[in-house]
């Protein structure tokens, strides 16, 4: 709901917005699939849930943007369709996350789907996308990146990585993962935290590209923007592993 988000809705390149929306769909389906129950949620249900999330989010975004007078009645379709479509990206992920947490009572007999390594990576991507898509439109990402030195970027990257690992394995949050007895700290750290951070950076780069954040920047500034956005994205990735 930041001003930059709705401005990007009509300013960003249309082909990039289409790419972002097309990328969103499999994320929503996968999220519905992995956050569902092993014995009852099937692929078809997940596809249906994804489109329900899009419908609900689009409806709510339209209502709220109208109440806030962001969408004017005289605005062209190009303007408001872009705004609503962009709001729907984090909104529909949020709708599915909310459904997985509050949607229905969990019983002891019903098991969450066992996701495996691919599922863990997928959930991390979804969590990173959720936070990155919320934060990337803000000017602060660019401003912070431009005022940081390369050393500060390296420290931020290390901090992001450490936070990711601490979140999932050490902080004692609900849903904390236990390190398997037969796996060393280094193996688990590389397999999930390092790989997860790389995925969070990739998601950050993708989101920044779709929003045109790299236009006219040097390679150094581009990398720093990715690292800055990678900070919340990595927290989102780690949180998704805990929550789902």
């Amino acid at each position, binding site marked *: 709901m930041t001003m930059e988000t709705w401005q990007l809705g009509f300013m960003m390149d249309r082909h990039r917005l289409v790419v972002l929306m097309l990328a969103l769909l499999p994320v929503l389906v996968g999220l519905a699939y992995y956050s569902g129950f092993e014995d*009852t949620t099937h692929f078809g249900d997940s596809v249906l849930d994804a489109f329900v999330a899009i419908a609900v989010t689009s409806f709510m975004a339209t209502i709220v943007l109208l109440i806030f007078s962001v969408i004017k009645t005289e605005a062209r379709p190009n303007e408001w369709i872009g705004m609503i479509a962009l709001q729907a990206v984090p909104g529909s992920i949020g709708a599915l996350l909310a459904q997985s947490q509050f949607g229905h009572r969990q019983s002891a007999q019903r098991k969450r789907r066992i996701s495996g390594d691919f599922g863990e990576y997928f959930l991390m991507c979804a969590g990173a996308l959720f936070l990155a898509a919320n934060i990337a439109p803000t000017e602060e990402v660019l401003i912070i990146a431009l005022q940081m030195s390369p050393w500060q970027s390296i420290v931020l990257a290390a901090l992001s990585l450490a936070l990711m690992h601490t979140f999932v394995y050490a902080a004692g949050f609900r849903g904390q993962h236990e390190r398997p007895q037969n796996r060393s700290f280094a193996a688990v750290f590389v397999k999930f935290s390092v790989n997860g951070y790389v995925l969070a950076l990739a998601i950050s780069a993708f989101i920044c590209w779709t929003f045109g954040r790299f236009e006219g920047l040097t390679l150094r500034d581009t990398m720093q923007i990715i690292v800055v956005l990678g900070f919340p994205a990595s927290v989102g990735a780690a949180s998704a592993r805990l929550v789902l």
Partner: protein
Amino acid sequence: MSPKTTRAGKRHDATPLLEWVLGGIGVVLFVGAIAFLTYEEFRGADRVSGVEIHIDEIVRTHDAYLVRYRAHNQGTQTLVDLRIVARVLDGTTERERVEAGIDFLPGESWRRGGFYLREDPQKYRIEIRAGGYQEP
């Protein structure tokens, strides 16, 4: 998004009608938005053009003359920080000059604004034009 209670063969029976309806609406919205945005993309690159300015009304306030205008972006390129300049002219002599700004003017869209002038613009000639902008 309610729980399904049966195995694959019967699961559709347990899916509420509302969920099917919302899912259908979601499909229409998603496909419609993709189609519309793709159409917009293939209309061509963003085109910069002029900004047409219409004076809607002139209102006498307690200490000024308020000139309310409507700026219409003729191009498809969004204009950022658009500067609008109003000049009150007596023949060729400039009696007053005021500037205002519009943060964002999306392509083929319009926004309203106003100028507070000391001089009565109805006694003289008023010229309002776009002064400059930034690309997004």
